[in-house]
């Protein structure tokens, strides 16, 4: 009996930090934010409880267009990250051994020692009108005048994929690492070619890693603010920028809070749909 209470106390003490962290930093602010989002400004400093802020999102095309654009761009960025990250991860996990493997893995990690802001400025130095790429093109004679490569969707995409790569490579490398080489060999031995082995053995095995990588990358991209704004400029039309505008420029916290919750709800919906499509469960993927 005594032992049991002792264990229980230990457990409670161990769980206390996470409970505190969750409630003080996540749940409480979100509840407050949710209450704010339900306020409708009817007069000077007078508010009414209503869903008007949410309704505004659906009635004002700019808002949901921005959201749709953000979601689609994020899906494209996630797909691109997966397409680039998969061969890289396969190479690191299955083709390399020992030191070369650790070295390449570390190389994927190194850019993340620098803050995202600095990395994004790095891209700006490369891509801007007076930047390195532009200069190189003029020097080789491929371009007559300065070329502006910033402030378009492609540059946003480049930045997003670059920023997300690690979060795709890490789960992929760990799932591919656990794939027994004999499975791949058996796939070939029984008559499969590179494509069928990839489709029937490697990808099904890597599916939990693919899905968890995609979820993380999608969420990070959707909620990214710095990269789209810096690389896309004023026309980036990113939903987080919209939220920022509501809170900071227009000082409309009520609408901003509503947007925040819509972002949470809609992105969860997209992730759920993605899980359904790939026939994976969240516990399988994260576990």
């Amino acid at each position, binding site marked *: 009996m005594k032992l049991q209470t002792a264990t229980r106390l230990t457990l409670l003490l161990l769980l206390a930090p996470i409970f505190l962290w969750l409630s003080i930093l996540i749940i409480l602010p979100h509840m407050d934010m949710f209450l704010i989002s339900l306020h409708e400004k009817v007069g000077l400093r007078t508010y009414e409880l209503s869903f008007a802020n949410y309704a505004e999102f659906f009635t004002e095309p700019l808002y949901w267009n921005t959201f749709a654009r953000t979601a689609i761009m994020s899906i494209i960025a996630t797909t691109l990250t997966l397409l680039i990250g998969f061969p890289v991860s396969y190479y690191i996990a299955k083709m390399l051994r020992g030191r070369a493997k650790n070295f390449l893995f570390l190389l994927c990690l190194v850019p993340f020692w620098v803050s995202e802001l600095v990395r994004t400025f790095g891209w700006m130095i490369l891509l801007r009108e007076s930047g390195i790429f532009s200069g190189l093109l003029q020097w080789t004679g491929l371009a007559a005048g300065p070329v502006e490569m910033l402030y378009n969707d492609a540059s946003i995409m480049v930045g997003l994929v670059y920023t997300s790569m690690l979060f795709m490579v890490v789960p992929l490398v760990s799932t591919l690492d656990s794939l027994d080489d004999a499975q791949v060999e058996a796939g070939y031995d*029984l008559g499969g070619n590179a494509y069928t082995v990839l489709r029937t053995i490697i990808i099904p095995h890597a599916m939990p890693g693919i899905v968890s990588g995609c979820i993380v990358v999608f969420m990070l991209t959707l909620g990214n603010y710095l990269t789209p704004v810096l690389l896309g400029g004023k026309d980036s039309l990113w939903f987080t920028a919209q939220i920022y505008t509501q809170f900071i420029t227009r000082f409309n916290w009520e609408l901003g809070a509503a947007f925040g919750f819509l972002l949470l709800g809609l992105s969860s919906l997209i992730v759920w749909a993605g899980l359904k499509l790939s026939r994976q469960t969240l516990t399988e993927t994260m576990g």
Partner: protein
Amino acid sequence: MSDSSENFDLECRNLVRNYGSFAAVDNVSFGVPQGDFFSILGPSGCGKTTILRMMAGFDTPTSGDILIKNKSVVDVPPNKRPVNMVFQQLALFPMMSVAENIAYGLVRKGLGKSEITEKVNSALDRIGLPTSGGKTIKQLSGGQQQRVAIARCLVLEPAALLLDEPLGALDLKLREHMKVELKKMQDQFATTFVYITHDQSEALVMSNHVAVMNAGRFEQIGTPQELYYHPDTSFVAGFVGDSNRWHGKVVGVDKDSVKVISTDGVELLATPAGGDPLSAGGEVDIFVRPESVVLSETEDRIAGMENRIDGELVSVLFNGANSRALIRDRQTGGELDVALPQTGEFSNLSRGQHVHLGWGMTQAKAFVAKGASK
């Protein structure tokens, strides 16, 4: 093994595989006749898995040729070779059902759906799992997984099935059972089996022919009986079956016998074996099987035998029909392994008891000792 080469399902000619300056496989040649159960037996690291992987196509020989059904396959990729491999850890596909695992190769061949279903069902019947097609791999026991791994290959009707120590991961009881099962499956599917193992009993029980491999070379190819009773080299004599072993110097050579003084001072008469000429002063290894040694409580029973030793019982290692007695030579202190007759005659032996041991000259085989082979 000197049949005409026409009947060989699988043949290796002067196969060499070097890793840097290390020769993993060093000039190995052999042929496996159709329908044969051929084992390659050797200690770990002797290069047997390398041979198998080269036959399957996962490794490329440095030189030499591999022929399947008399056609060179050295340049053929693994997925185009008419041989299939059963992996050590089986490598069943966990994300597919049992039936899908068996169907995998058939689908890759582009067979029709109904034909695949038919073949998969008949394979499931033959391995005694007719209702397990829809199960996942994890729901099967170790022995059942084994059978699925083999059936998955055999439905493709390969020229030969390559097995890489598939029983290694099983517990003892199941391993004994699977030995019989494997032999049965080979009869049932009438396919050539090439079996890799370091376990001599697996090789001896199942095979028609066994190649004993050591340090990249084949020491001897023969039937299990030939290997056991007529080993060509001291390695084979020591590796296949149990043996009592002496190292010594030749003191006299007769027409068909040698007299040897062992390093611990026993004088032994033995039959030269292995074909190498023995001469006085040469170093030899002598092997005597535990079951060749006659154990007696009285001296007269072994009076007619060329080799006699006075000993005392150290311990009895009781193991049913395979019971042994460990006996210490009174003169030298060396220990001998002696098989106990199954009649129960010696069931009352007691520790320290004085016994007499004897064995015939023909039961003791003397091989020229190879430099470092000890």
